[in-house]
């Protein structure tokens, strides 16, 4: 199935659902045992929203993020991104979807060690349609000064900010972060969250963060609790905190 690029931009209608998941199920075959990771998740993510997915290990939050990010397909149910049904996409279409619309931030940064900070960002801007410059992207995360350093010369927090700059440089519709602070200490983690919050606020990028750190939920528009493969609770915090107000 071909993915039509140049779809209607998603950054305009704040009430429009960017993602729409209905009855999402995912079963993994682990040897002889079938593991039910998702058991029928219904979910909408809206334009510009900052959503935090909370849940213990095995609750299915990573699986959900992987499906939203086009890294995996559901066993049953549908997931739509804008007008497109991701659940029937083939590998090439999913690749194209990730390339054009999704920014990823991972727990372990996954930077390319042989490329400098600037080049890690350029890696993505070279293949994007309307990117910002690597310098702009790195300025967004306060790393303009260190852009010629290799990952091995940067601290963990700096590396994660490079990863964020790399994720947002192509101006993605969605930013998906999988335990972005999981490998960092509190102070560094907060700096990273600030960068993510700023991207969400200033660029209006729909942002989903998965974590098992409940505190991070305080900075979200919505907190979605997952447990045992199902959405258990959805909260909308009355007062959205700034990252620097968080502590854990």
């Amino acid at each position, binding site marked *: 199935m071909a993915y039509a690029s140049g779809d209607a931009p998603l950054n305009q209608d704040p009430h429009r659902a960017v993602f729409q998941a209905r009855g999402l199920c995912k079963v993994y075959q682990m040897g002889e045992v079938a593991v039910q990771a998702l058991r029928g998740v219904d979910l909408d993510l809206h334009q510009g929203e900052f959503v935090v997915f909370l849940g213990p290990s095995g609750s299915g939050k990573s699986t959900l993020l992987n499906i939203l990010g086009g*890294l995996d397909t559901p066993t049953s149910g549908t997931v739509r991104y804008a007008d497109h049904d991701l659940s029937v996409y083939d590998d090439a279409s999913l*690749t194209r979807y990730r390339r054009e619309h999704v920014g990823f931030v991972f727990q372990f940064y996954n930077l390319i*060690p042989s490329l400098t900070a600037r080049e890690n960002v350029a890696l*993505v801007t070279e*293949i994007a349609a309307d990117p910002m410059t690597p310098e702009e992207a790195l300025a967004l995360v306060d790393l303009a000064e260190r852009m010629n350093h290799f990952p091995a010369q940067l601290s963990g927090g700096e590396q994660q900010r490079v990863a964020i700059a790399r994720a947002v440089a192509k101006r993605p519709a969605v930013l998906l972060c999988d335990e972005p602070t999981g490998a960092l200490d509190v102070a560094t983690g907060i700096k990273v969250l600030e960068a993510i919050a700023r991207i969400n606020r200033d660029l209006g990028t729909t942002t989903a963060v998965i974590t098992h750190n409940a505190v991070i939920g305080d900075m979200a528009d919505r907190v979605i609790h997952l447990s045992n493969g199902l959405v258990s609770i959805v909260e909308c915090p009355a007062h959205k905190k700034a990252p620097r107000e968080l502590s854990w």
Partner: protein
Amino acid sequence: MKGQAFAIAAVILCGVATYVMFLTTLDALKLTRATYYAENRFGDVFASLKRAPESLRARIAAIPGVAQVDTRVVADVNLDVAEFVEPVTGRLISISEDGEHALNLLHLRAGRLVAPGREDEVVVSEAFAEAHGLQPGDNLHAILNGRRKQLTLVGTALSPEYIHQLRPGGVFPDYQRYGVMWMGRVALAKAYDLEGAFNDVVLSLQSGANTQSVIDELDPLLETYGGYGAIDRTDQRSHRFLSEEFRQLEHLSNMFPSLFLGVAAFLLNVVTSRLIGMQREQIAALKAFGYGNGAVMWHYLKLVLVIAGAGIIGGIAFGVWLGEQLAGIYTEFFRLPYLRLALDTQMLVVATLISSAAAVAGTLFAVSRAARLRPAEAMRPEAPVRYRVSLIERLGLRRWLGQPTRMILRHIQRRPVKSLLTIIGIAVAAGITMTGRFQNDTVRYMVDVQYGMAQREDLSLVFIEPTSRKAQFALQSLPGVLHTEVFRSVPVRLRHEQRSYRTGIRGVEPSGDLQRLLNVNLQPVDLPVEGVVLTDFLATMLEVRVGDSLMVEVLEGSRPVREVTVAALVKEYLGVSGYMDLTALNRFMGEGPAISGAYLAVDKQALPEIYAALKVMPRVAGVTLREQEIKNFNKTMAETMLFFTYVATLFAMVIAFGVVYNSARIALMERGRELASLRVLGFTRAEISYILLGELAALTLVALPLGLLMGRALCDMIAQNLQTDLYRVPLILDPATYAFAATVVLVSAVLSGLLVRRRLDELDLIAVLKTRE
């Protein structure tokens, strides 16, 4: 790991197989030759002469050290085989009818030996009989001493004296146009007026006898009777060719395995280093549990030895099989009566030890590093890899290079030694491919020079004995003969200080067009009016230079001995000899205008008539067709070289495949996480394939020119080993050979690249996000 282990075992297998193949062949041939020589009582000393009375035999037998003496009559003759238009020449050798033939016994293949008293019976060399489809009972004709005689074939046989059966002066066998046959002594002696006399003698020596002192006593005895100088077995033509072949096999058996084993050692080092890198934590755990360094090292060495062991066992089996095939080809080619296979266990032990040592040496560094790791240190992940901006980028190309290309360059530069060894490994593959085709190229070139530039006649002929120059007019007047040139050749011994060499001096017509002498640049040279011209290699052997004088001892006629100045040197790839102006040589010999043979340019349409006329010319002893010599060469090449070309190409592909596949697999292991991350970011399979395989493509492209240079160097090593008075092999490689080697390497590289690329489709994109590097 399985694929890599297989690839490494395959490289070791090739190394062991080449070693075992060459040595199995060599051992089999040596044993066969030795058995054959012993069973058929091959002589130790050989001498031909003009004519000596049989009574001389006792005096020869009395020379200290001589065990047996066999006197013979030997004659070169023109043969006429029914329904074969072209001229055929042959050598008739006497055998005693009473069966008391002492030396160089025949190995009868069919029929029987000649019966006593039967003057028309001959035993024919099997190759010749097969080439003409002759069976016992068939007839053929020979011109014996000017008289045409019908001969009846009673048997076919092989002789240790003619394992390599070549016409005098020929380099490639031609069983259709040259045959060796044996006839009763009485009959042959009668035909050549040698009753009670002989013109050839073979001696066997007592064990421990000094060959040279026997020859030193024999030569003066025979000199009175027109002796041409005795030769030791090592100079006997057939023996000599075989020995050269053996020497070459030995050389190749040293050269090739070391290349393969070097590559295998490198591959094992790379793979175990990587494996140990991945298993740091297990090593730490083992050591924490109290396992000693020795135990840890032994653990990895066992793995290496299992891989090497598989390669060694496979290599021995394959090598023995290949060796038997190759020995079989040689048996056919050399017309050996049988093949004695000898599986030399010592050689197998050596092969095993050398290969294991190479494998262990290749991994020892990595393994000892693993053993030295302190458990606490090993528990921690390896320090992050430090990259630098690559040299090419710093040279100013950076802005033109995309990030993937920068990744490739920096990765190559991060491990310069490994990259270099990978390049060398691939280069070795190209080099080995070239060696497989080198002999074909160079011998083709030698033939081109010999038969395209130097010898340009259509056919050449020799007379039974020196003949008046008037014979040229007879030849010239044959219908269809366009042009003739004549020559005089005399057997000589050339001496300079302590060095001497037996060869011939050929007197040729100055500014001849059919037979030309070429200088070192292969330009035709004018023959100097005075002095002798030598093959450059002969000058080196005798340590003479242009302007030096040389003692020339003629070994026929009045046997003049005189000093002659070396006037010039000429380039020849086949044989070594001297040349003089025809008139000057006649003068030197103190004879009139005598000639020994002629070169003819003919109208091809008239060849059958010319052949017919030459067959009945009583004084014509042998006719050689230039075109046929070229065909003989091609046939010889097809028989002997193709096998080696196949084997070398196959093995080179294994090396190229092994190196590229292993590098790609290691790269995939090292960079799988990186590549999966890129896939997550939206890179396509093609884009990440470029990053993974681009590195190998770059290394392969750098390796190719290096490999072609290395191939040239390897061929040069082979050529250097083939510089003898029999032939000098120049370093000539066709452009097609370079192209072929490059293609073999590229195809192997692409195949192994594709195989690894398939694994890129199996990258686990999700796992990579959840794991620390």
